[in-house]
């Protein structure tokens, strides 16, 4: 009896091991993403259907958005696994460019992307963008009290009623770095100290900010376009405010496609071409309410084009440097 069980166990183990090792690895491409899985997976599946190339993806978690997979690419530098990085912001890929982990490719589909949103050598190319916006709970904030600037996050009027995501992770990192460049680092630090003193909640992620605003736990918070779209889709009592339209402008963050030094260069180029196509950008715009960069892509229902917004002027390369420099201070500020 025991021998029969042992034989069964050995057979089961062999079958399981075979299942692990025999997964087809022919014609595949490995992509790491820091854009939400819920929006990007259908686009990747579409590529699989059209090209016959299997896509193997690693998605970031909400908490480590943009840095989890980025650091995995850095950690794997000695033996690169990823062929393409599809980033939710344009700054972190510059850290990969600086480390020499990119294999530049100028896709023909990048021609329609405005020059400010791509590198001439093809090391990165921008796509549909997100805006950093204020998500407002309409049950808690009267129409005539709607905030107009991100500075109101630190206003005593809203003491203990606002939220931002932890600036150590995700798009908030880039946002505070951009603010530091716009205002000066001392002014930014003073703002963040004031924010904390004002009882602003430091959420684990933008998704968490959305949840806090949608449930009415806070009156308003700083989030991204896709978080707002999701809250609106769920029927939450929220409204979107593009901040500082009468001042420095709203921060826009294009998504970015970065070809890496992975083991499947040919498939990687095909995937980059697909991700930079009009169809893929339209799909992302429609699904995630992103803001189109290209003229041949329509904005989502009720959404805006980049040209219709007063955008905050940003030098992504400078923001990347500031972002690295600010980290120790931000960790101290966050208590980590």
């Amino acid at each position, binding site marked *: 009896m*025991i021998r029969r069980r042992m034989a069964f*166990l050995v057979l089961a183990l062999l079958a399981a*091991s075979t*299942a*692990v*090792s025999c*997964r087809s690895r022919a014609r595949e491409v*490995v992509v*790491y993403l820091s854009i*939400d*899985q*819920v*929006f990007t997976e259908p686009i990747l599946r579409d590529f699989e259907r059209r090209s016959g190339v*299997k896509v*193997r*993806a*690693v998605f*970031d*978690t*909400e*908490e*480590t958005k943009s*840095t*989890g997979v*980025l*650091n*995995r690419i*850095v*950690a*794997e530098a*000695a*033996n690169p*696994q990823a062929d393409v990085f599809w980033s939710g912001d344009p700054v*972190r890929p510059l*850290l990969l460019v600086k480390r020499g982990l990119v294999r530049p490719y100028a896709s023909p589909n990048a021609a329609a992307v405005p020059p400010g949103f791509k590198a001439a050598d093809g090391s990165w190319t921008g796509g549909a963008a997100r805006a950093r916006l204020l998500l407002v709970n309409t049950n808690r904030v009267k129409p005539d009290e709607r905030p107009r600037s991100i500075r109101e996050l630190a206003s005593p009027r809203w003491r203990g009623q606002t939220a931002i995501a932890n600036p*150590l*992770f995700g798009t908030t*990192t880039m946002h505070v770095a951009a603010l530091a460049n716009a205002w000066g680092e001392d002014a930014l630090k003073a703002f963040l100290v004031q924010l904390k003193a004002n009882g602003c*909640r*430091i959420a*684990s992620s933008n*998704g*968490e900010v*959305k*949840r806090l605003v949608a*449930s*009415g*736990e806070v009156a308003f918070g700083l989030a991204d376009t*896709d*978080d707002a779209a*999701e809250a609106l889709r*769920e029927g939450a009592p929220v409204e979107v405010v593009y901040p500082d339209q009468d001042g420095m402008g709203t921060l826009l963050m294009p998504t970015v496609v970065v070809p890496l030094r992975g083991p499947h260069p040919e498939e990687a180029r095909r995937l980059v071409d697909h991700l930079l196509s009009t169809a893929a950008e339209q799909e992302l715009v429609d699904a*995630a309410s992103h803001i189109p960069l290209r003229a041949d892509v329509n904005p989502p229902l009720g959404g805006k084009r980049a040209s219709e917004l007063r955008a905050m002027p940003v030098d992504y390369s400078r923001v990347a440097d500031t972002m*690295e420099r600010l*980290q*120790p201070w931000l*960790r101290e500020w*966050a*208590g*980590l």
Partner: protein
Amino acid sequence: MAPGMGWVVTMRLRRREEPLLLAVAGGVLVGLVLVPLVSLGGQLARGEALVHAARTLSAPRTWSLLLASLGIAAAVTVAALAIGLPLGVLLGRTDVPLRRLALWLHAFPLSLPPFLIALGWFHLLGRGGLAGSALGARLLFSPTGVVLVLALALAPVVTSLVVVGLRAVDPSLEEAALLVAGPWRVSVRILLPLVRPAVALAALVVFSLALSELGVPMFLRVGVYPAMVFSRLGGVDYAPGEAFALALPLFVVAVGLLVFERRAAGRRAFGVLGLRSREVPDLRLGRWRPAATAFAAAAALLPLLPLAALAIRAGRGRGFSELPRWIGASAWNSLLDAFLAGTLILLLAVVIGHAAARRRRGGLGLDALAVLAFVTPATVLGVALVATWNRPSLQAVYGTSAIVVLALAARYGAVGLRAAAVAFSQGSDHYEEAAAIGGARFLRRLGRVLVPIHARGLGAAWLLGIVFCLRDLETAVLLYPAGEEPLTVRIFTLEANGPEGVVAALSCVQVAMTAAVLALGAALLLRGRR
């Protein structure tokens, strides 16, 4: 000449089968845990990493956060003991009705990822939740909330160990005490002191799990020390050497915990789970029975509330109908990884657990190493494994699910090892000695005597290893091969803007999958009993 030499070598090897096998198993454990951690520690020598690490370690906020985390872990342990000790006695030794069902219900959430339970509490108590209120939400998103969520999730560790520990108590002691004292006094003065080793082990496990927990405090926005370690790996300035340095105080805590456990349990450290007692009449609670029943029912049902909230959220959000679109192969990946890792853990546990239970040379050291891996922040262990295994020559491991299997075995080896050691220490070593005197070598004794005699205990160790691997998130999320994520990772990544109904439905699949594995395992174990 040559065959003669070969025969001599073979005979010598056979005589030394046990230490050789222990050396092989120990080598695997050292290779999976110690080598990666030491090589990660070597990154401290790079550039100014050592200077940065020294500056970080000398900063007051580092120590204040560590103290805060130790405080939270201690509070979770005290709360879990406050729930688990009386409940363990009630469910293990008294005439409370439906005790077995209550124990199963109470213990089940332990087999689920804690962040999933926190998500369930959010759907229940968050401002927009089923029983949401401003007060409930404020309580949930606070250190008190973290303590309560973790205490309820981890209390079953105490309850279960106390229940099985009570079975090891010599019934004659209890019967003698009952002649002169009531059930309450017998429980407090006789039974609980006798299960002290089980309580010590439970406290160690609860404290370790609470101290290394990252998902729940991050979700509930409470700063903890593991988050500080994580910030060196998940932030923009990737600094693995500094993360390792920050993990050093946790290693010291781990050693302290082991010393505490060994002192509290003495030589009975592994002999806490009893499967051998004869039937003893239940302690009669008399007029206290209704109140005790109400307490047991509340403790059994309370941890199920967040799971019910998840199911309701999934149902209302049409999450179940959307499941086929989003689940992919993640459930299969979870099962396969957990099955293979659980099996590897069992293989290591049979050899090392036996050595630890029989106090063979090196056995206790390897046990300590496994416990060290258990309390090391998963992120640190994960990055150390990436640095060690991500080489072109090892692509067959790093590029496949094999890396997840190895990482899970490294992290949860202690669970299976302890369970196997307990099983071995419960049985008499007379059979083994008799077989040895009869000339049976170690492998033969293992296959013909030890494994058959302790089949149930080893089966339980295997099941426990599989369940812990199944509930893992923090280890796998760092190194799963592209496109082969387990279900816990898929839930966590989809949680970012994924439809809440779908995320809740996927969580329900995780719950159902774990329940099925547990039910199947329990059925096999009980079948063996009959």
